[in-house]
């Protein structure tokens, strides 16, 4: 191997397509992908909503999410959950999970609102240019991460295991367990609810109006500030829910910078689906989860997952420059 080009051309050992393996494991890849994809989707929604209204990539949203995950861990630990799946009746497990979910939503929602008030509101009052928001967002993201770091240290929180997944049914020889089912169904239900909320309610109409022309929206009697806060709040609440599912899936995934990578994935999902579009976020999240898994099975190596995701993103954007469902939030017809 004397030149890189030669290496790429001749040494095919580092990229091999194993289609049979992918097909053998197709359904596993799909269901596993959907589960994580549902989490991406919920987080993606926060990006999409804020983007739709303020035209701004809320880079701190990943920290909104991870704050919720901390809340889940603390709540569940306080309720006695630990490294072993508890031996509790189903009802009380569900109750505990709902409690944890509420706690996470509360914390994430609060953090989202705080970020809005501290990092964005003052900029808005000063009519700052768009790039300033981006940097302020990055600053907020840094600050929250290192606040968590200084508080909790560089290690992930100890695992809290909520329940042992039970097989529910069998599709094409692949077993779908109760955990996967819970996550995917709950995520979809929540997203649909939000979608309907935005499409049908007065607040939703206000959100869309502010998204397009904040000044004129004000002239219609829309309270712009309230709309913006609501948007952050909704995004935060969903991120909180996502945090619960995330901890379910990765009981030891709660670490100060754990939101960052997931946040980028979720943001990618939002763009893939068409940023600003709620259904796009759902679709993008689920797709991205599956695509990553397919890539991994096809190329036989987890390190390819992200490469595959981004390549697919570029390909999709080349065909549909505004993402799959590419129109703006505002275009969701009532």
């Amino acid at each position, binding site marked *: 191997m004397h030149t890189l080009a030669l290496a790429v051309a001749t040494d095919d050992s580092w990229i091999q397509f194993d289609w049979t393996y992918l097909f053998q494991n197709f359904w596993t890849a799909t269901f596993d992908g959907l589960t994580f994809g549902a989490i991406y989707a919920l987080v993606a929604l926060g990006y999409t909503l804020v983007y739709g209204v303020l035209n701004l990539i809320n880079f701190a949203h990943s920290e909104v999410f991870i704050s919720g995950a901390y809340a889940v861990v603390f709540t569940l630990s306080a309720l006695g959950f630990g490294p072993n799946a508890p031996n509790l009746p189903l009802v009380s497990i569900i109750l505990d999970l709902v409690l944890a979910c509420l706690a996470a939503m509360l914390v994430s929602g609060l953090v989202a609102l705080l970020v809005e008030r501290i990092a964005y509101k003052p900029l808005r009052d000063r009519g700052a240019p768009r790039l300033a928001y981006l940097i302020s967002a990055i600053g907020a993201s840094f600050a929250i991460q290192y606040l968590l770091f200084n508080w909790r240290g560089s290690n992930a929180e100890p695992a809290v295991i909520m329940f042992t997944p039970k097989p529910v049914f069998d599709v094409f020889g692949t077993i779908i367990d109760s955990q996967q089912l819970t996550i995917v169904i709950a995520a979809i239900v929540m997203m649909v609810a939000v979608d309907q909320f935005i499409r049908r309610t*007065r607040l939703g*109409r*206000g959100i*869309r*109006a502010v998204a*397009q*022309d904040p*000044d*004129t*929206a*004000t*002239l*219609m*009697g*829309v*309270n*712009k500030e309230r709309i913006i806060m609501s948007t952050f709040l909704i995004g935060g609440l969903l991120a909180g829910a996502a945090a619960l599912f995330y901890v379910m899936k990765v009981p030891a995934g709660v670490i100060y910078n754990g939101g960052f990578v997931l946040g980028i994935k979720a943001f990618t999902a939002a763009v893939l689906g068409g940023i600003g579009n709620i259904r796009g976020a759902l679709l993008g999240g689920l797709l991205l989860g599956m695509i990553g898994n397919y890539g991994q099975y096809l190329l036989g190596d987890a390190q390819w997952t992200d490469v595959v995701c981004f390549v697919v993103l570029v390909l999709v954007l080349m065909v549909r420059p505004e993402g799959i469902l590419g*129109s*703006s939030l*505002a*275009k969701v*017809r*009532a």
Partner: protein
Amino acid sequence: MALLELDDVSVHYGRIQAIHNMSIHVDEGEIVSLIGANGAGKTTTMRSIAGLLSLSGGSITFDGEDISKTKAHLRVVKGMSLTPEGRGIFPSLTVMENLDMGAYTRSDKAGMAEDLDRVFDLFPRLKERQKQSGGTMSGGEQQMLAIGRALMARPKLLLLDEPSMGLAPQFIRQIFSIVKQVNQQGTTVLLVEQNANQALKLAHRAYILETGRITREGPGRELASDDAVRAAYLGA
């Protein structure tokens, strides 16, 4: 009784003063017109009244209440509605949704339906195009939409910033007659117009604005026949 009163109002853009100690009033039931050259500060005045710009001096009273510090969206609730210069259509909301936005603060279903009928009567084109998105309407169609939307708010005070801009002649006439009609139904109107002739004929009273200062005031017809005004604004 004065529905709207500006007392000694000043407005700045940064260090540039756009409005200098302006005092005007609009009485209940009146049509008042504001005339001035490009850049005189008409739009600035309207935006300040609507609350989009903050005052650097003076006060605004509406319906007997000092609203100088009131947020813009609350002024809408109190009963004023501005059709901004450049129309301010929500480009990807449909025509129908745009009209709905006009009634954002209202909750009386029956009244809203009635107003919608009225708007569709005035502008049949809007009825035809209910589902088209606002941004793809032609310039003139957007202007109709903007006025229609303002009517949906059923305001006490209607602020119109150059409603005839970009309209075909027969529509300009229509707009003016609509303004008259709306006024007769009880809405007070403050009208900014470049179409000074018609505006002055329509208005009960008018102000002339030059570089941020009121220079003349009087009944519309009187100003319209004033030679100096004619020379400056009517292109005689």
